[in-house]
């Protein structure tokens, strides 16, 4: 039966169809839905780990016991998991281990644009790259087969456009899961001390050679010969873009992007006059093919940055006759993502933005607080960076930084990689104030569970991490809990903690407004009483989506209600969007913001 599936759904389906029943991962766009979907299939065990390193180690353990194990993460997650990754390449996997890396060309939801094909070569692990959902499903199955056959972890690389596009997939019946797990003790294969790792190192090179031979006959690497003037070597989603624009050229479509089928590439090159390599981001294929002594053109014409689309390829390789539209000349205001109405982060960052402090930020919805008008966050590097950076900055500044450095981190991000730097801060007597923006869920990626929510990925109740107790055993003497809906409390607690010269943690706790399980309605929608509003714009400083400025300019005289002489307009609240969080009422100095009366 054909069904419409996203690339992520198809990856999960493929794993299930080929008998994988074990999964681990950490949420991260564009990878998140893979494990969420996989976890729904009957007989599957799947868990969110606190971070990608743990997820991979859990996956390795399961594979060593003989399971077929699926590990999922976004591209930067592989950086976190890189330590076990490079050595599991030596030990091999016994069962099967497939690692999904979901890359994000164009940085739709990421802090960088790294090309994780480089990890395949770096860690000497084979990598498959599908171009649509059907291929994603089939390639996962091949990945599991390869992993078992060659005793190697196998990468499957997706990109945002593969993960989050939908196309038709033919579902197959799932294979029966044959239980091959048992305790196996084999120190020479799994204890990577130097003497044994040196021996395994040789096995890695032998395995790569075997994989190169496999690549030559792997049906996922295929030649599509048409017009021989131009040959295109490509893989993954860019294949589709190129086919769209240049359907009559010859193609070498690579399903396995590492290692490459050198003989096949030579054979293809011998049959076409001019070769283009069409790949997003790094010249990964191009450099390897050039190293074979084959003349190809790639990055001299195509961009290094951002994802492609058919237009990019047409522009670079096959200019199409232009049919320009005369577009209206108009300035279009941008529409960046914003904190939601009622978002608990808004109160905290409103307060921080008004203090003369450096706020080392982290990865999550609250990163958006860097924008006007809040401007309450001043750095964002990677998961967990805020805590260590705030500590380092505060130490380097010495007295100059006293009471002026804050690190902010979300609850899931804190668990991911904020705990060790907090321990470091306590151990080294840091004085930066760390704030956990605890909205009780992994909000940015869509409400995933984590170790402090009290529930597992598969919905079972479990222990919930207690941040206060944890901070105390790490050596943080002062732990304060605040409600970011209370601006006065938030401001005074932040001032008190910044004045302290000992390690300090503030937990800013309030459920994400979109998280149905925890969110409780706080109040009725608010409105602006135009007979009181003086147009001071204080409420606009919150950057709350329902609050808008209505200028008097152009209004008929009768509709203008001025409460001060120089007033130029007033604020307006769209009651249909307002959650009644009351922040605007708290910042209004004239009491002009009131509850909407019941009809």
């Amino acid at each position, binding site marked *: 039966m*054909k069904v*419409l599936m996203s690339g992520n759904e198809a990856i999960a389906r493929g794993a299930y169809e080929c008998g994988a029943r074990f999964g681990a991962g950490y949420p991260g*766009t*564009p990878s998140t839905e893979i494990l969420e979907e996989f976890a729904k299939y009957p007989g599957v065990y799947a868990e969110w780990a606190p971070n990608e390193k743990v997820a991979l180690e859990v996956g390795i353990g399961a594979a060593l016991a003989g399971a077929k194990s699926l590990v999922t993460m976004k591209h930067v997650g592989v950086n976190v998991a890189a330590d076990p990754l490079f050595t599991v390449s030596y030990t091999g996997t016994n069962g099967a281990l497939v690692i999904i890396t979901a890359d994000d060309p164009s940085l*739709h*939801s990421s802090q960088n644009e790294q090309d994780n094909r480089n990890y395949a070569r770096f860690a000497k692990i084979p990598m498959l790259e599908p171009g*649509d959902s059907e291929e994603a499903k089939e390639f996962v199955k091949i990945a599991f087969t390869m992993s078992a056959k060659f005793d190697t972890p196998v990468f499957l690389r997706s990109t945002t*456009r593969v993960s*989050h*596009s*939908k*196309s*038709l997939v033919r579902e197959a019946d799932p294979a029966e899961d044959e239980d091959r797990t048992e305790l196996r003790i084999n120190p020479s294969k799994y204890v990577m001390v130097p003497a044994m790792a040196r021996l395994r190192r040789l096995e890695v090179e032998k395995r790569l050679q075997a994989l190169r031979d496999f690549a030559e006959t792997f049906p996922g690497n295929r030649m599509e010969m048409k017009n021989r003037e131009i040959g295109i070597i490509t893989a993954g989603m860019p*294949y*589709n*873009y190129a*086919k*769209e*624009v*240049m*359907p*009559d050229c010859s193609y070498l479509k690579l399903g396995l992007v590492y290692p490459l089928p050198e003989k096949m590439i030579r054979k293809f090159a011998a049959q076409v006059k001019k070769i283009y390599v069409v790949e997003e981001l790094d010249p990964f294929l191009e450099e390897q093919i050039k190293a074979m002594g084959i003349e190809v053109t790639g990055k001299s014409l195509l961009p290094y940055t951002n994802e492609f*689309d*058919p*237009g*990019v390829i*047409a522009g670079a390789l096959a200019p199409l006759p*232009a*049919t*320009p*539209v*005369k*577009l*209206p000349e*108009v*300035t*279009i*205001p*941008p*529409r*960046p*993502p*914003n*904190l*939601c109405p009622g978002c608990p982060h808004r109160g905290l960052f409103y307060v921080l933005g008004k203090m003369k402090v450096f706020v080392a930020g982290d990865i999550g*919805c609250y990163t*958006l607080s860097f*924008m*006007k*008008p809040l401007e309450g966050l001043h750095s964002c590097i990677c998961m967990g960076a805020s805590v260590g950076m705030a500590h380092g900055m505060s130490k380097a500044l010495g007295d100059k930084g006293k009471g002026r450095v804050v690190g902010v981190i979300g609850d899931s991000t804190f668990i991911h990689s904020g705990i060790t730097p907090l321990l470091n801060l306590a151990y080294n007597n840091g004085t930066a104030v760390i704030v956990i923006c605890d909205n009780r869920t992994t909000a*940015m*990626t*869509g409400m995933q569970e984590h170790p402090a929510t009290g529930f597992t990925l598969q919905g079972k109740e479990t222990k919930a991490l207690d941040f206060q107790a944890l901070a105390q055993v790490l050596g943080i003497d002062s732990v304060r809990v605040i409600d970011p809906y209370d601006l006065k409390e938030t401001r005074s607690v932040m001032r008190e903690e910044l004045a302290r010269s000992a390690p300090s943690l503030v937990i800013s706790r309030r459920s994400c407004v979109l998280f149905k399980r925890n969110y409780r309605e706080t109040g009725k929608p608010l409105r602006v009483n135009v007979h009181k509003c003086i147009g001071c*714009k204080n409420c*606009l400083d919150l*950057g709350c*989506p329902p*609050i*808008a*400025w209505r200028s008097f300019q152009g209004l008929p005289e009768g509709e203008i209600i001025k409460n001060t002489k120089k007033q130029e307009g007033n604020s307006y609240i769209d009651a249909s969007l307002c959650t009644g969080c009351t922040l605007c009422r708290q910042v209004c100095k004239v009491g002009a913001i009131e509850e909407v009366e019941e009809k």
Partner: protein
Amino acid sequence: MTAMKKKPPEADVRSVLMAGVGGQGILRASDILCLVIMEAGLDVKKSEVHGMAQRGGCVTSHVRFGAKVYSPIERKGNVDILLAFEKLEALRYLDYLKPESRIIVNELELYPPAVNLGTMGYPAHALELIRGAFGTVKVVRAHELAVRAGNPRAENTVLLGVLSQWLDFPVSLWEKVLDRAFPPKTRQANIEAFHLGRNG
């Protein structure tokens, strides 16, 4: 279906671009369109944006269909139909269109942050600007129709109804897919919303 000018290499592939703001039900609408196309026996691919864009930012979804579709995204200057859920978002994506493209615009203004703060203006006369550049522009008061259908949130289904007039799929197919796409509680209102859009 109106005759398309023959313009290789993708003569038989058509594309719809849906554009709007996070929370307007764009991804749901494009899913429904894809299912209708699939039921009609054609190949279909769609593409969408997740993550950051969900937080009140722009949301777009490309839907491309035909005998064989490669790319899930359309290039600029080649979209056949723009279905805009909001006026500013219609203006934002006009460069994806060609001169003969057709446009459906929801009569709705959602202010982005810079307009709320008063630092930028919401483009005045957006509809006139669009009409000045394209021949076929249909303006829909989707909210009014959705309310009339009994579910103010069914604006996206109203807009699908309008779109359905320009696509050559039988009403029964749409009804079949809509019937499956919504839970019993909202099903009737959505089917009603679709018809109000289609017949409006």
